[in-house]
């Protein structure tokens, strides 16, 4: 019965976008290889990493109603969990991933327990404050490059395979994104996810039922941080570099824009949002240069206007505005 339900969900605009998007991502490395141009594969890897980070933020922002401006902190942790161990000669990806996830979980548990004493605007500000603390901590680590960051001389290896080639990194990132999407899909429809979504809609009611929101919110915050740290791990491998800038609050802001563009509280929306945002960011400078060379440096203004227009027209996001339940359950 469940398989039937799942199959019928795919026959909707959302389901079709979902399948086409994933198929395009699966086919892209072969196209990129055929064109002998690694540019597209690298761009797509970047899109998937941003998508992974946005998918993780969407757990708390979209489904939990917790708007965090500190999410980049966990990307920073994930990135430094690659470069610092490598600096000390540890290039094993499993160990690096374990460090990333454990550190992210620990710091999320600590900071989350404090942030969740507040909500709304205060929550946003405290998450931002913690992210800034992490940012300046990274700046102050002079032996790890301080402000300049650390380059990564060697990408992570996983025993049986390494991420040295762009193709391998692409495949690994794609697999991580697929896993995360499947995880979030299961999560939001699970008993845990139901309570989390209930808290977002009406916390007073959920408390009166006998659920203590704090435990659910903190668990979601930690889960979300762990997935974000994996995005950081991948980002460091992609750029062969990690610096405090990976923890800049502007990155958290971009992730929020990506989620809103794609559709909050949808499983696949952040992927659509990430593709849209990064493709525009790549294409706009060239477009503006071709049409009006004098205004080349003003392309970001046009990006801003486009984002405003898209958000105004499609209030629930590009993907969120599509009809169909897939892969979410009917509203």
């Amino acid at each position: 019965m469940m398989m039937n339900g799942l199959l019928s969900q795919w026959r909707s605009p959302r389901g079709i976008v979902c399948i086409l998007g994933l198929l395009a991502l699966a086919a892209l490395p072969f196209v990129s290889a055929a064109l002998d141009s690694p540019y597209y594969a690298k761009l797509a890897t970047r899109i998937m990493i941003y998508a992974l980070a946005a998918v993780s933020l969407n757990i708390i922002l979209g489904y939990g109603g917790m708007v965090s401006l500190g999410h980049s902190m966990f990307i920073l942790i994930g990135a430094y969990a690659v470069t610092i161990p490598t600096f000390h000669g540890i290039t094993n990806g499993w160990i690096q991933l374990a460090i990333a996830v454990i550190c992210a979980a620990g710091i999320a548990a600590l900071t989350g327990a404090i942030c969740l004493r507040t909500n709304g605007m205060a929550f946003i500000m405290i998450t931002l404050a913690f992210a800034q603390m992490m940012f300046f901590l990274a700046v102050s680590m002079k032996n790890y490059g301080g402000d300049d960051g650390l380059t990564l001389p060697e990408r992570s290896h996983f025993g049986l395979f390494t991420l040295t080639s762009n193709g391998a990194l692409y495949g690994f990132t794609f697999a991580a994104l697929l896993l995360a999407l499947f995880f979030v899909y299961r999560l939001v429809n699970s008993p845990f996810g139901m309570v989390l979504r209930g808290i977002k809609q009406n916390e007073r009611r959920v408390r009166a039922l006998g659920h203590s929101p704090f435990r659910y919110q903190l668990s979601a915050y930690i889960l979300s941080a762990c997935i974000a740290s994996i995005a950081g791990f991948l980002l460091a491998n992609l750029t062969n570099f990690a610096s405090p800038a990976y923890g800049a609050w502007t990155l958290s802001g971009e992730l929020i824009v990506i989620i809103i563009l794609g559709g909050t509280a949808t499983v696949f929306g952040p992927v659509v949002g990430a593709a849209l945002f990064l493709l525009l960011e790549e294409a706009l400078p060239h477009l503006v240069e071709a049409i009006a060379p004098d205004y080349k440096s003003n392309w970001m203004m046009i990006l801003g206007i486009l984002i405003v227009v898209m958000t105004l027209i499609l209030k629930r996001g590009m993907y969120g505005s599509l009809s169909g339940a897939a892969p979410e359950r009917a509203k």
Partner: protein
Amino acid sequence: MSVLEIKNLVKRFGGLTATDNVTLNIEAGEIHALIGPNGAGKTTLISQIVGEQLPDGGSILFNAEDITHLPVPTRAKKGLARSYQITQLCKEFTALENVMLAVQARRANNFHFFRDAHAEQEIVHAAEYAIAQVGLTPRAHTAVAVLAHGEHRQLELAVALALKPKMLLLDEPLAGMSQGESEEMVALLQNLRGQYPMLLVEHDMDAVFALADRISVLVYGRVIATDTPQAIRDNADVKAAYLGH
């Protein structure tokens, strides 16, 4: 034996005493109506019983246990279920999902990240049963946002029933209902008589006198009378303060 004992409860908002030395017992199995003019402090009293507001003085005992300072979820777990005067539901969820959330609250552990809640027979069946109890089965899979007002009131009750509570606190369950809907709700509450002790806040006097075993009258935060419906009807103070108007 009293299920709920409220002793000398006091709640002040600045200069206003919303609950003025209230002492009230709810006996096992009884339907106890709480009536009084607007602003008498009926909802404030319910909020203190469930813990959404904390009293400035006095105590609340539930099944002989002092719950005066316990947090809301702990009290709910001990068996206190309330319905709200102004509907409090999860609007994006369907009617059934709202009740499922209540069923889940009875379980020891909801930290299952990978199971489909909609595939858990235990949760779904219990929720469907509560939905059927209030007669909402045809609307079970409709989102709360598009349900009618009367249906929201029914759903509020289904949610409370799904908690399998030891006591029901119903804050104006008939508010805004049509005549027909009201009659159905009164019949439903009649059916539940004896299963749950109830504290019923209601303005519909026909319903109150049809349902209540005892009635307490609250005026300006003070209980001026607690008695059987007939005695309340004949009570001169009550007539002067409330019923006479």
